[in-house]
């Protein structure tokens, strides 16, 4: 019997480190102040958004510049469900996922007719359509936006401190859920197909992989995750408007920056990218709009020096994998093949 092994020494270290880091983050309320917790929660949302975009663009080859459509949809669902039906915010965050997945199906049917750059433009146009529709809903503040009613916010927890902790842990839980879901997906049979599509679409198709169906499924799944994160983001902000909800800058440009810097087509990339992005933002934010230009310069420098991003460079040079995704064939002494 062939035996296949997934783990390598670096991935065992990686998993141990990830477990340690996760424990430290879960206990962050013990060692971090309010501002740090808020910053960490924001980082978690970016790790999740970037991981989802990485799945979409890095693996499935669907370069969308319109994922803000689903961030905004999730955000508006939170407000609509709360204001119209009194749905508690935490429940609304969970409902946003399946609703967005349903909405994404007709959207996909439409934009999947487009290829390459036209697909990218199509996703952006869809997001603009979503933004215009949101600005027409008078009950949700129209073009100027609306705040989450205090009654809903106050009902979340007995004290403000508890509410903030609740949101912090929710952000951590959602980010971890997104990462674990992507990991499980990539480890599965579908992940094998998705990795093949990432590397060579032509060969994937002629090896029997239904590339179109796979892309469709990835698009719907990403919409699911992105909208949940969107709802969470606007639960943290407590206020929503069409311009903030469907911001191409905040929910797509920064996300692409993170993925490209960290390493596209690698599950570890978005985590590294988010850390770099926030380090830059925290140190350069005082420079005002100059900071965006600095970010651009960094992006170009990384793309020139390491086209596969920071993690891609590490993999190339050191052969590390943080997570046990590879399938290694183990040869038995008898000469009989086993795969681990």
């Amino acid at each position: 019997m062939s035996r296949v092994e997934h783990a390598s020494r670096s991935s065992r270290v990686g998993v141990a480190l990830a477990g340690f880091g996760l424990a430290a983050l879960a206990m962050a309320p013990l060692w971090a102040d309010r501002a740090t917790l808020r910053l960490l929660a924001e980082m978690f949302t970016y790790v999740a958004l970037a991981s989802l975009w990485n799945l979409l663009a890095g693996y499935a080859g669907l370069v969308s510049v319109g994922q803000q459509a689903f961030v905004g949809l999730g955000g508006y669902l939170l407000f609509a469900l709360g204001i119209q039906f009194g749905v508690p915010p935490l429940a609304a965050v969970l409902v946003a996922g399946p609703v967005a997945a349903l909405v994404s199906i007709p959207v996909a049917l439409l934009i999947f007719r487009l290829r390459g750059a036209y697909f990218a433009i199509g996703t952006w146009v869809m997001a603009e359509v979503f933004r215009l529709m949101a600005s027409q809903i008078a009950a949700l503040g129209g073009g100027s936006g609306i705040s989450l009613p205090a009654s809903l916010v106050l009902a979340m927890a007995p004290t403000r401190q508890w509410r903030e902790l609740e949101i912090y842990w929710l952000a951590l839980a959602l980010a971890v859920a997104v990462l674990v879901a992507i990991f499980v997906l990539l480890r599965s049979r579908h992940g094998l197909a998705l990795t093949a599509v990432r590397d060579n679409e032509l060969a994937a198709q002629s090896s029997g992989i239904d590339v179109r169906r796979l892309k469709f499924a990835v698009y719907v799944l990403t919409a699911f995750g992105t909208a949940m994160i969107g709802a969470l983001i606007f639960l943290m902000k407590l206020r929503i408007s069409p311009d903030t909800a469907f911001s191409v800058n905040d929910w797509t440009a920064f996300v692409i920056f993170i993925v490209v810097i960290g390493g596209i087509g690698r599950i570890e990339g978005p985590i590294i990218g988010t850390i770099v992005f926030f380090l830059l933002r925290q140190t350069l934010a005082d420079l005002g709009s100059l900071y965006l230009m600095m970010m651009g310069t960094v992006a170009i420098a990384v793309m020139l020096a390491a086209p596969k991003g920071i993690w891609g460079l590490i993999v190339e040079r050191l052969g590390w994998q943080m997570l046990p995704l590879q399938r290694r064939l183990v040869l038995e002494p008898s000469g009989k093949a086993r795969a681990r």
Partner: protein
Amino acid sequence: MAPLLALDNISKRFGAVVVADGISLALNAGEALGIIGPNGAGKTTLFAIAAGALAPDAGRVLFAGEDITGLSPDRRCRKGLARAFQIPQPFVGMTVFENVVVAAAFGAGEPEAAVYDRAADLLDRCGLADKANRSAGGLTLLDRKRLELARALATKPRVLLLDEVAGGLTEHECHALVELIKDVRASGVSIVWIEHIVHALLASIDRLLVLHGGRFIAAGEPREVIRSSQVAEIYMGIAADG
């Protein structure tokens, strides 16, 4: 009985260049066909049309009597039509073993864990056993060609399209390849093989076709075709031009 694979009056042009001008071809079950022709004759294009990567301007592709002209490449692969590309197309970010596992699992429609043995065995037969856990992106051209063959075989094909898999092999390697292809044939796979290495072809095929100017200009018993004056003329012509 209907041929296993048939091209029926296929035409294809790129701009003003006509690469296929009403080409028909029939591959019977158990048969091995060879195709030769000068560079740019349209041999690879014909494979692309058969495998579904390219749509013909006119004509039909039939598999076991069924019209598959509109089917996607993955559907054709799962029906049993496998293609080894002239320019190898490895999954560069995966290991050699994973490359073959992908084709074995999806091309043959089997659960992943059920194909490990077969994948390992194929790597062995294609001379890649010791490189199973290497990244496919780091392989030499020769090993990429071997991987191309292993991956095509992993899909459990009924028809195997081989596009210049022998180029660049040493005499010894070429002999091993011919043995492997005979083996594959003996297991019931029908083959169409495009190849410039004529002696490798002659050792393995039943029928030889010569593609030139968008049509088959000669077809028949391989040795006779090679000797025929028309073929000699084309190749001589090329030799004389060069």
